[in-house]
C-alpha cells in the first residue's frame, strides 16, 4: 500500500498507472476479438466479373442456407408452409448429389422438416408431427416450399422464367467465403413488381450462392437467399438416405402431398383461356387445378379453391387485405406486399386464388375478368 503514496507526476500513483495498463490490455483484447468478424467481412474480394454464369444442375454440393423475406404475408389456412419462408427467416441445411438425389432440412428451434429426393420417390419427414410421408409419382402441381428457395433452385427457376430480360454485371461479393461475381437481371415487362434480381455465383462451378429480389419502388431487397456455408464435395450416401418407417413414427404414402395436389386430383376446373390480355400457358399434363398466365416474372397462377377452404382463404385475405371493385354478385380482395400479390375472387359458385409477382392494377383487371367469366 505504501507505493500508492508515491505520487508520479500529477496525481497519478503507481497503482493507478498499473490499473490503467491492465484496463488497456483488456480493452485491446476486446477490440481485437471484436475486429475479427469485421476484418473477415472487409477482406478484399478478387474475382473477375462473369459474362455468363453456367448454372449446372450436375454440380454436387452441401451447405447451410439462410433465406429472409420481408413480405409480411398473413398466415393463410393450409398455406403457412408457403407464406412463412416469404415473411421471415428460414434456415436450411442442404445436400445435393444430383437432380434425383438430394435433401433439404428446414431447421427450427427444437424442430426440423426434411425433404429427401431419392431416385424412387420423395420423402418428407416432420419431427413436430412425428410423420414420415412417401410421395410417389410426378407432382404435376404443388405448392412452393422452402426447398425451392435455396439459391441454386430459386435462380434456376428465375432464369428459366426470364427470357429476353436485360442482364448486367455486378461487383463481386464474398458469399460463404467464396469470391462470387454477380449479375443483375432486370425484367422488361411493365406488369411485374420485380425491379431487379441480383445473383452471385461461384466462379469455378457456376453454382448460384446468393440471390436477392428487389421490388419496384424499393431500395433494398425484399427477399434474400444465400449460402452461409458451402462445400463442393459430393455428399455421402448415408446423409441422403431417408429414415426408414418403423414403429413409433407415423408413415403414409401419398401422391398429393399438399392442398394444391389434393384439389388437382379431386376437382378438375375449367379456367378461361386468357385473362386481362394474358394468354393461358400450355397446360402441363395432369394439371387441372391451376392455370399459369403470362410469361417470365410477370406470370401469375390462378387456382379454383373448393368451398370450405375457399371461404376460409377469402375470410383471411379480406381481413388483412383491401377490397377490390368487382361486378355485382361477386367479391374480391387483394393483399399487396410489394413483391408477391395475392388476389381472391369469390362468387356464389366458386373461389379463385390468384398469386404472382404482378402489379395490383393488373390483378384488379384479373378480378373483373374472372368474375365476368363466371357469369
Amino acid at each position, binding site marked *: 500500500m505504501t507505493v500508492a503514496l508515491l505520487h508520479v507526476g500529477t496525481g497519478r500513483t503507481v497503482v493507478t498507472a498499473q490499473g490503467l495498463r491492465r*484496463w488497456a490490455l483488456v480493452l485491446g483484447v476486446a477490440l481485437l476479438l471484436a475486429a475479427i468478424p469485421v476484418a473477415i467481412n472487409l477482406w478484399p474480394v478478387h474475382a473477375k466479373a462473369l459474362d455468363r454464369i453456367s448454372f449446372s444442375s450436375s454440380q454436387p454440393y452441401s451447405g447451410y442456407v439462410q433465406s429472409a423475406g420481408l413480405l409480411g404475408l398473413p398466415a393463410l389456412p393450409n398455406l403457412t408452409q408457403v407464406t412463412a419462408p416469404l415473411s421471415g427467416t428460414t434456415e436450411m441445411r442442404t445436400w445435393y448429389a444430383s437432380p434425383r438425389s438430394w435433401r433439404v432440412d428446414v431447421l427450427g428451434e*427444437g424442430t*426440423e422438416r*426434411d425433404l429427401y429426393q431419392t431416385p424412387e420417390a420423395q420423402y418428407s419427414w416432420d*419431427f413436430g408431427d*412425428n410423420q414420415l410421408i412417401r410421395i410417389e409419382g410426378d407432382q404435376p402441381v404443388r405448392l412452393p416450399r422452402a426447398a425451392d428457395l435455396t439459391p441454386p433452385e430459386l435462380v434456376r427457376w428465375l432464369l428459366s422464367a426470364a427470357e429476353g430480360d436485360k442482364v448486367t454485371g455486378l461487383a463481386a461479393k464474398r458469399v460463404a467465403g467464396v469470391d462470387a461475381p454477380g449479375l443483375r437481371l432486370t425484367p422488361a415487362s411493365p406488369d411485374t413488381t420485380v425491379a431487379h434480381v441480383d445473383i452471385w455465383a461461384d466462379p469455378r462451378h457456376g453454382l448460384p450462392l446468393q440471390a436477392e429480389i428487389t421490388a419496384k419502388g424499393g431500395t433494398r431487397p425484399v427477399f434474400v437467399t444465400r449460402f452461409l456455408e458451402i462445400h463442393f464435395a459430393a455428399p455421402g450416401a448415408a446423409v441422403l438416405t431417408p429414415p426408414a418407417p418403423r414403429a413409433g413414427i407415423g408413415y403414409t404414402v401419398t401422391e398429393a402431398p399438399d392442398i394444391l395436389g389434393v384439389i388437382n386430383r379431386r376437382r378438375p376446373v375449367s379456367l378461361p383461356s386468357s385473362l386481362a390480355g394474358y394468354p393461358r400457358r400450355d397446360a402441363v399434363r395432369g394439371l387441372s387445378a391451376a392455370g399459369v398466365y403470362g410469361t417470365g416474372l410477370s406470370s401469375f397462377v390462378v387456382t379454383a379453391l373448393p368451398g370450405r377452404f375457399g371461404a376460409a382463404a377469402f375470410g383471411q385475405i379480406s381481413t388483412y387485405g383491401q377490397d377490390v371493385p368487382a361486378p355485382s354478385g361477386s367479391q374480391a380482395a387483394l393483399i399487396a406486399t410489394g413483391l408477391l400479390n395475392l388476389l381472391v375472387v369469390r362468387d356464389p359458385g366458386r373461389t379463385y386464388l390468384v398469386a404472382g409477382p404482378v402489379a395490383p392494377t393488373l390483378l384488379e383487371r384479373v378480378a373483373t375478368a374472372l368474375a365476368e367469366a363466371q357469369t
Partner: protein
Amino acid sequence: MIRVELAKLFRRPRTYVIAGLLCALPLIVAIFLATTRIPPPPGQGGAFLSAVLSNGALYPAAAMALVLPVFLPVSVAVLAGDAVAGEASAGTLRYLLVRPVGRSRLLVAKLISLVVFVLFAISAVLVTSYLTGITLFGASTSSAGVALPPDVTSLSGVTISPAGLVLRLLGTVAYIVISMVGVAAIALFLSTVTDSALGAAMGALAVLVTSQVLVTLDAAQAIRPYLPTRYWLAWIDFFREPVLWRDIERGAGIQLVYLVVLLGAAWANFLTKDVAN
C-alpha cells in the same frame, strides 16, 4: 485456494436447494404431461416436449430445454454475483485477502467453483429427468429382463442408439457449461464492481434479458451474432443427424470471447480495487 472454494460450495445448503429447485421443474412438468398426456402442439412449448410422450429417454433433453432459458442462468447469475460482492458485504473479503491470497487466483478459484456448480446442477437435472422420463413415459424391456431405453428418434427422424444418446447428452452438458461460463463471467465482473451481491446478479440478468429480447427482434439482426444468448439453444443441434456443428462452434466461440473479455475486466478492476469493508 480452489479446494477451499469448492469445499465452501458443497458445504453450503443453498447449493443443494438450487440444484433441487432445478430438478423439481422438469419433474413437475413430467407429472402433468404423464397424467394428462396432452403434449404441447409441435413447434410450440419447450423443445422436445411433444416428443417425450413416446420417447421417455429423450426427457433429459426436454428438461435441459426447460431449465436453460431462465432457471439455470438466474441461479448462475445469483451465485456469481455473490462470489466477490457477497464476501465484501459480509466483511469477509478483507480477511480473505489479508491471508496471502493472490487476487487473480481468487477470481479463478471463484470461476472454477461456479463451473463445478453448473456441472453438478446439470448432472443432477440429467439424472433425475432421465429417471423421471423412463418411469413416467416408459422404457422397453429387453429379453434379458433389463430395462433399456427405447431407441430415440433424432430431429431428423433417424434413430439414435443408446450409446449415441449418451455421447450427445455429454456434448449437451459440455455446451451448456460453456454457455453458463459466459453468464458467470458477466456476473463475476459486476460482482467486482459493486459490493451488492443483489446488484451484480440483477445487472447480469438485465444483460441476459436485453440479449434475449434483441435475439427475437428482426430489426436487431446486425448485432445478433454477438449477443451472449444468441446460440444458447444450439445444443439442440446435437440431436440432428448429422450433428449440425455450425451454431455449436459459434456459440462456444462467443462464450469464450465473453469469458476472456469480462474475466479480464474483472481482473483489471479487482486487482487494484480498494477493499474497504
